[in-house]
């Protein structure tokens, strides 16, 4: 019988143990009972897919297992930090018409999957990108194009462009919605559309739309409209941002703005500005939506209304993030009788960040300014649009 020396046997055994250990460590143990195909994909498709898709504005697609796995650590950090998904309302999502946060279970599924070995599940599962409906509200009544393309040279990563779009309406119009259709969605990061000053206009710089990717436009309910005076220009302020995929590449965009006319007659929506502290409402109004100063970020902000009868109602409690200024549309119009006191409080958002999450710059509390979209008070609040 052939023999080997004990020394050789021990050496070979140690080498094989080391090899075996290396192999074992090279694979994360799969502890997640949730798989990408069966559990994760349905969530990310609905809640993240508007941006995290091929050619989307986010820096990675999450709609395939191969696309999502390399980002699992980042996904986990951003979820635990509360940075994503970017619906920063602290209270119940049901209070607003356009807030689509994760449920507790969905959040847990994603975190468990990212920590638990990112198992793929059914092979080859992918989701089609959410339907790219160019105009989610249907064809606009009027479309205004940027006069020319905006080009970001290869050396530019981030740029804000302010453009003036001429309107040609021979009379003032009331608008039920304003939307933006990016020409190059991968670089259009956010936009503000407002009314330019006109002679005799009291509504200069009224904000018609705060556009962020993945946030479908919400139309005003019947009976209300944003005023666009005759001859007014639209001021479109677009922030362009290249993700790593487009770094060092020249990119161009020519976005379009869609206008949706309101049925008339209708009440004109007014902007009611609120600052830190207490504001007393001088005439009865109904609040339809609330939005922050676009420069406000990384603060905890709360607005509470106290009516003359003593009833209190939290209008919003949220943590605005840079680049995600949006309108929060109340599910039901909020009646604010004359004499209602609205108190705005705010403080820097003392984030509790997990390892790997990116810290945010400190808040500038002087930017704590909210705007309420209001119409005159009435006995019956307007119905929500379907």
């Amino acid at each position: 019988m052939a023999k080997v020396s004990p020394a050789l046997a021990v050496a070979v055994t140690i080498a094989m143990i080391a090899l075996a250990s290396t192999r074992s460590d090279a694979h994360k143990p799969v502890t997640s009972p949730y798989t990408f195909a069966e559990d994760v994909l349905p969530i990310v498709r609905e809640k993240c897919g508007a941006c995290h898709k091929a050619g989307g504005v986010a820096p990675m697609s999450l709609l395939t297992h191969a696309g999502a796995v390399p980002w699992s650590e980042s996904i986990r950090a951003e979820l635990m930090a509360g940075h994503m998904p970017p619906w920063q309302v602290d209270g119940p999502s049901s209070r607003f018409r356009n807030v689509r946060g994760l449920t507790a279970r969905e959040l847990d599924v994603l975190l468990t999957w990212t920590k638990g070995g990112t198992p793929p599940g059914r092979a080859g599962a992918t989701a089609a990108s959410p339907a790219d409906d160019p105009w989610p509200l249907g064809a606009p009544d009027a479309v205004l194009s940027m006069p020319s393309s905006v080009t970001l040279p290869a050396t530019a990563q981030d740029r804000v462009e302010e453009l003036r779009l001429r309107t040609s309406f021979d009379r003032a119009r009331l608008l039920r919605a304003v939307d933006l259709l990016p020409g190059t969605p991968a670089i259009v990061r956010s936009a503000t559309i407002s009314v330019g000053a006109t002679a005799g206009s009291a509504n200069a710089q009224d904000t018609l739309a705060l556009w962020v990717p993945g946030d479908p436009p919400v139309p005003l309910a019947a009976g209300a409209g944003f005023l666009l005076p005759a001859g007014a220009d639209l001021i479109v302020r677009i922030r362009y941002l290249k993700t790593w995929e487009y770094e060092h590449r020249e990119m161009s965009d020519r976005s379009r703005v869609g206008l949706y006319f309101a049925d008339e007659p209708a009440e004109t929506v007014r902007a009611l500005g609120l600052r830190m502290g207490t504001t007393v409402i001088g005439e009865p109004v109904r609040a339809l939506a609330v939005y922050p100063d676009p420069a406000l970020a990384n603060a905890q902000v709360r607005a509470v209304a106290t009516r003359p009868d003593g009833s209190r109602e939290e209008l919003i409690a949220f943590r605005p993030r840079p680049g995600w200024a949006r309108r929060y549309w109340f599910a039901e119009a909020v009646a604010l009788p004359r004499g209602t006191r609205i108190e705005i409080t705010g403080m820097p958002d003392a984030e509790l960040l997990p390892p790997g999450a990116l810290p945010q710059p400190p808040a500038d509390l002087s930017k704590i300014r909210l705007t309420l979209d209001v119409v005159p008070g009435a006995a019956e609040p307007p119905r929500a649009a379907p």
Partner: protein
Amino acid sequence: MNRLSIRAVTGLLIVLLAAPAAAHRGSAPAVKGTDPRALIALPIPGTIPEILEQLKTRDAQVRDLIRAGNSSAVWVPAFQAKGLAIALEPRAGQLAPRARESAEPAIRRVVRFAWLLDAFGDAGDRRQLERAYAEFAAALAEVVAAFAGAR
């Protein structure tokens, strides 16, 4: 000099090589691995009051573990509380509107801060653990208050 047979050495090598390979095969579908996190599934009680009692117990366990400096074990009761809270989420619909408005975001916070407790516990970061626990406990208290009286 002692001599070993080639057959014995070969047998040993086969065992050593086969073990991780088998473990890897087993992990291809989403099976529970050796990570103990897969072993803490908690039976969810059938009634809301029982769930709330369990939540209070887990809350106290997390607090005591942090006080004792046993940060690496914090995740066990924290994750158990997370599972209990998630079990309440579909039942929030039976609450009065105001209680529901409070319960839903509080349950989400329980989940988020349970995961943060896990992360800070792994890192042994006591200061962050205490901050996360304060948020976790506050969220649990909100959940308990919202569901108090529900069956």
